[in-house]
């Protein structure tokens, strides 16, 4: 039995281009780009090429791109730097109720959460009213939900922010490398391991007209240049493959959503059916403990993620599912990637109904 890894939303297996680039970069890009000798100049050129490649794909200028040690660090730097530049205006962070926990943790004391509908999309009246309050320093909106896949109206949210002079930060970790990020934002973060690059590379973009105080006034310290080069090379590769991969994965996700709904009784398919990421499907099964379901799937060779409280260290249910009013127990998120095959999905869909049935039988349901 070939194990099937269905947790691309946490980390995508390293892209072959990333692997090649990483090995080459270990020879070529090990020197400190800040020094003045030949090896350092070479490293500097490689770093600038990586910035340029990422900038081109994101449609921004090279000097607006900064690499960070991971996506969470990019989120923290975006939020703390933007709020630090807005001390006189206000320190309130307005964010959707379905942001990644990295955003919520960086939010600080003064934050306002904007509710979402049952598909996970922000409530437009609530967003407008939250942005229209005094003291708003920054707004944060995830480009697409990492838990349920629903796309957010980033461009519209950015227009509302612009009307009120509030900068918008977009956590685009789920989108970059797969789908275009709409315009209208001032700061953006992404994470290389979500597109098939190495772990340990985050991307922070601060647009030119945006006021931002660097959280690293004395420099960032040394970064993992070989990993950055591999991240940039793999981003170019996945960007080039994106149209065909999205069509393929989106068809698999449609099949998962339709088949699970048809073959598993008392199941809720979560997230917007149309306006969603191409590679991610989420559903919740009544009367099933998420942790038991995750372990049962793991024993059959399926690696999935869950938003159920029993699978989190805090024993709290997913704040995303809770904000949507979706069933939080028995929850499974399946996220696909370039190595996912149609037969992996077929095997999953064939085995899932029996696994759920057995777990329900154990609790007399």
């Amino acid at each position, binding site marked *: 039995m070939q194990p099937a890894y269905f947790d691309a939303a946490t980390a995508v297996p390293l892209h072959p281009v990333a692997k090649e680039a990483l090995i080459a970069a270990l020879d070529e890009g090990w020197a400190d780009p800040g020094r003045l000798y030949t090896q350092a100049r070479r490293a500097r050129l490689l770093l600038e090429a990586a910035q340029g490649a990422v900038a081109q794909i994101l449609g921004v200028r090279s000097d607006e791109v900064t690499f960070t040690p991971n996506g969470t660090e990019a989120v923290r730097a975006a939020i703390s730097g933007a709020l630090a530049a807005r001390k006189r205006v206000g320190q309130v962070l307005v964010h959707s109720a379905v942001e990644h926990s990295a955003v919520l943790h960086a939010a600080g004391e003064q934050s306002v959460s904007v509710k979402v509908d049952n598909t996970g999309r922000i409530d437009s009246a609530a967003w407008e009213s939250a942005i229209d309050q005094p003291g708003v320093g920054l707004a944060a909106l995830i480009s697409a939900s990492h838990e349920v896949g629903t796309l957010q109206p980033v461009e519209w949210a950015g227009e509302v922010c612009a009307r009120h002079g509030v900068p918008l930060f977009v956590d685009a970790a789920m989108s970059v490398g797969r789908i275009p990020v709409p315009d209208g934002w001032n700061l953006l973060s992404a994470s290389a391991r979500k597109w098939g690059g190495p772990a340990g590379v985050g991307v922070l973009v601060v647009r030119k007209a945006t006021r931002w105080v660097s959280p690293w006034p004395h420099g960032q310290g040394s970064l993992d240049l070989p990993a950055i080069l591999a991240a940039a090379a793999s981003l170019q590769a996945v960007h080039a493959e994106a149209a065909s991969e999205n069509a393929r994965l989106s068809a698999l996700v449609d099949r998962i959503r339709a088949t699970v709904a048809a073959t598993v009784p008392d199941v809720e398919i979560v997230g917007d059916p149309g306006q969603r990421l191409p590679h991610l499907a989420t559903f919740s099964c009544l009367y099933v403990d998420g942790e038991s379901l995750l372990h049962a799937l793991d024993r059959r060779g399926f690696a999935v993620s869950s938003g159920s*409280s029993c699978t989190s260290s805090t*024993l709290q*249910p997913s704040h995303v599912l809770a904000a949507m009013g979706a069933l939080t127990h028995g929850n499974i998120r399946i996220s696909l990637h370039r190595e996912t095959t149609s037969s992996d999905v077929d095997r999953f869909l064939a085995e899932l109904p029996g696994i759920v049935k057995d777990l329900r039988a154990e609790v007399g349901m």
Partner: protein
Amino acid sequence: MTAELNCLGQRCPLPVIALAKKLPTVAIGDIVRVLADDPAAAVDIPAWCRMRGQEFLGSPAPAAFEVRRIS
């Protein structure tokens, strides 16, 4: 008539399972009050009502949820 189910200290989905087993034993129109302090219960009991076509009446007190059998 209101029946009470004490699920305090139980982790989800146990309170929802208890509710699903209890509700068919009460008359249509009757209410089951579930006492549950697992943080997921506040989301999962209304979600169960929506999925199973029963009426969620709200939370009259902390860690208490009322459901009316309507079918």
